[in-house]
């Protein structure tokens, strides 16, 4: 039997302060970057897709890589001077983004905008024709509505999870898991700011998948905690947590490795259109693992200290474990590796 990390006794919880400092620093750095972006891109802290802001996007595919300023000039000449022109994964592919006018309900006709730009380019670069790969136009009011919808979706998924965990476990576990999830959203936002990835609906989907994945991980550990608490050992909650994390460590490593492998396959091979999604998932594997141990675990400890349980026949073991934890000033570490 080939085993990795079997029967480990790492004291994970001991490093919670370092972990908290690290993650808070990461989030703050992300927020600062958001501020910088907001200042630089006239108020747009995050790089939203036209689905959210309204406007048009078109992807131009050239036969060979054209000079970037030729594309830029063609876009200017077509009358879209404010448009954002970027390459899209490949120097042969360009993405042109035109913002919608404030309050416009009707979608700008992106195909005609794209056709106009393509026509001008055909004159300028006659030996390098551009094809229009895709166009997308959204009215500004639709965009606003979508933003509300996305935020609603995330909030509702929080509430639903909280209720489910409160039923299956206990409200303390539910709260800890939800706070860990919020942490994941914050770190992912910081990551989005650092990478300046475009936030589309697909990215929102990726974010929700990360939330689901992180929650999954938290639940696996909490399930062990629940089980170990029932065993009525004379352990503090801190020790129970440490033991549970160690016991689930081989599973965590193996699952994260397989998911990460799938994510890498997506990131490297699935192409530019899905790349923001892949990046977020790749980051999500890390932040999800981290938050299950250091956010969910640490917050659970804190909640239990703040609102200790009352003893009932069902949770005698748990209650004792907790009171033991409180009695000791400094819990002895379970052991060192």
């Amino acid at each position, binding site marked *: 039997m080939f085993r990795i990390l079997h029967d480990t006794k790492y004291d994970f919880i001991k490093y919670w302060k370092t972990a908290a400092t690290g993650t808070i620093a990461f989030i703050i750095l992300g927020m600062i970057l958001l501020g910088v972006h907001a200042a630089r891109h006239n108020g747009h802290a995050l790089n939203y897709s036209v689905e959210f802001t309204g406007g048009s996007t078109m992807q131009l*595919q050239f036969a060979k890589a054209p000079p970037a300023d030729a594309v830029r000039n063609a876009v200017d000449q077509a009358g879209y001077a404010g448009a954002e022109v970027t390459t899209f994964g490949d120097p042969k592919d360009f993405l042109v983004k035109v913002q919608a006018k404030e309050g416009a309900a009707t979608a700008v006709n992106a195909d005609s905008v794209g056709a106009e730009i393509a026509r001008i380019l055909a004159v300028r670069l006659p030996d390098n024709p551009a094809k229009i*790969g895709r166009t997308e136009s959204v009215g500004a009011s639709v965009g606003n509505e979508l933003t509300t919808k996305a935020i609603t*979706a995330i909030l509702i998924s929080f509430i639903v999870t909280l209720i*489910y965990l409160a039923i299956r476990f206990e409200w303390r576990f539910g709260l800890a898991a939800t706070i860990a999830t919020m942490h994941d959203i914050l770190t992912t936002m910081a990551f989005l700011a650092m990478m300046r990835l475009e936030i589309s609906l697909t990215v*929102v989907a990726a974010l929700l*998948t990360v939330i689901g994945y992180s*929650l999954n991980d938290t*639940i696996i550990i909490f399930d062990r905690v629940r089980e170990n608490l029932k065993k009525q050992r004379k352990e503090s909650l801190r020790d129970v947590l440490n033991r549970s994390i160690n016991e689930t460590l081989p599973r965590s490593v*193996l699952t994260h490795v*397989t998911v990460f492998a799938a994510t890498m396959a997506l990131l490297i091979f699935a192409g530019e259109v899905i790349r923001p999604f892949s990046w977020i998932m790749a980051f999500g594997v890390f932040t999800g693992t981290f938050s299950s141990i250091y956010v969910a675990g640490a917050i659970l400890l804190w909640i239990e200290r703040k609102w200790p349980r009352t003893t009932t026949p069902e949770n005698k073991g748990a209650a004792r474990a907790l009171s033991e934890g409180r009695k000791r000033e400094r819990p002895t570490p379970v052991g060192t590796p």
Partner: protein
Amino acid sequence: MSLRARILTILALCAVSIFFLFPRTVTTRVRGANGVFHEDTVRKVPLQEGLDLKGGTYLALEVNDSAQTIPADKKADAIDRALKTVRTRIEGYGVSEPIVQKQGNDRIVVEIPGIQDPTRARKLVQEQAFLQFMITDKSQALERALPRLDQVVKQRGLLAKVPGAAAATPTPANKGLQGLLTTADTSKANDSTKKAGAAASKDSAANDSLKLQAGGAFSSLFQQGSMPGEFYVESDKVAQLQDFLADSAVQAALPPGKTLLPSTDSASLQGKWYRAWYLVDSKPIITGEYLTNARPAQSPTGEGPIVEFEMDNVGGRRFRTETGRHIQDYMAIVLDGRVMGRPPVIESAIGTRGQITMGGKSLADAQDLALVLRAGALPVPLRVAEQQVIGPSLGADSVNKGMRAMIISVALVIIIMIGYYRFSGVLAVGGLILYMLYTLATLAGFNAVLTLPGIAGFVLSIGMAVDSNVLIFERIREELARGKTVRTSIDEGFRHAMPAIVDSNVSTILTAAVLYQFGTGAVKGFAVTLIAGIVASLVTSIFVVRTFYLLWLNRSRGAQTLSI
């Protein structure tokens, strides 16, 4: 459950899955390059691809309430009725597997695969197609009202706006099927014996145009046309006239019971372009609601494509009575507030059949007009709130890349699982293969649409699907480490891993359900793939792999060791 029953269940699931995924022949009505419909049969795996994979046009339509405010409950009702019309039009258009759906309460989503001409698609769904037959004025009512109108324009200070109005583009705001008609076309209605239509005047605007009245801002726009109630307005000044007409005081000063409508007809005179306007009775003699059929045809007299229409008996009777009362009057055929060509003179009562000439336009345009007339009028005007066009090559590229990522992801997961868990890993891989089969079959069975995010979700789920196996295997290892027998360890392993597996998967399903509820298009596809994947992974890891173990235990009676 006995081992035999377990194996039979798995085999039955496989059989059902293969049935759902088995390539089948699909027959669709397709419009060929020559614009004629024909039946087309293809053999394909019944998995629906989203627009982002096969290319096409996506439109989100909502009620256009910019002209008048429509209360929310009326809007929802209007959307329901508009949905039917839009669906009939799109289905009649002849592309395979179009999607027309209501989204939320106030939006219609249209997906037309393969269509690379979004302008035509927009026209097809936005055209309100409200057909009216109206009699032109013969009483010189406008001429008499002109002094009053000039006065109103002056009083309201509308002239002050003129420079701006004149600078505005002369393109009319309402772009619709009138674009189908060329400058020279004439429209006529006639019965099968062509009593009425043939008399369409060939007079050009040049013949007897005269300035009606000098001076007044309103009247100076008009020049008398060649038939009663016909006026010519310089193309450059159409925008100005429309500005005037937008004013309520001007509307009130128009002759009572009459309406001033623009035509699709333009004429050139001394190097200037003029658009015809007609003063017609506000009350139509009949509307398009009685239309039972409309079809494109070639005009027997060689005037190019026409649209022939038929009315039902009630409509036919009414049409006959009304036209009988208006012999020698001119009848304007009005589509969405625009007169189609020059109104023909009614020479005798018209029955149930008639035709609209398309001028120099193509047969495809006549087909589109016939289609929208057949499908009926939209109860409310619609606007395009969102539009996406995906080129077919981009879609094919996405499919290829997605498939490549999937194959590599599967290969990696297989290597990791077998490398780490050896024999048990092989069982897990067996489960994984069935997992992919079941998931795809579920998607096919529920007619779910496979999108690029959906493929990404599926690739990701391959990595996640083994999680349940990993949980179980680790538990079995723990039990074995405690010195339990192989059989007991397997039983205990499955039993102890269960709560964690259920809780973690249910919470993910809940998240996916929220996503499904609030997502649109591609994201919805992603949520469906995710849910189908989780259910399939629960079935395979808990039930299928367990059965594999039982099978193995039976074969190797009293096995002392387990390769895990």
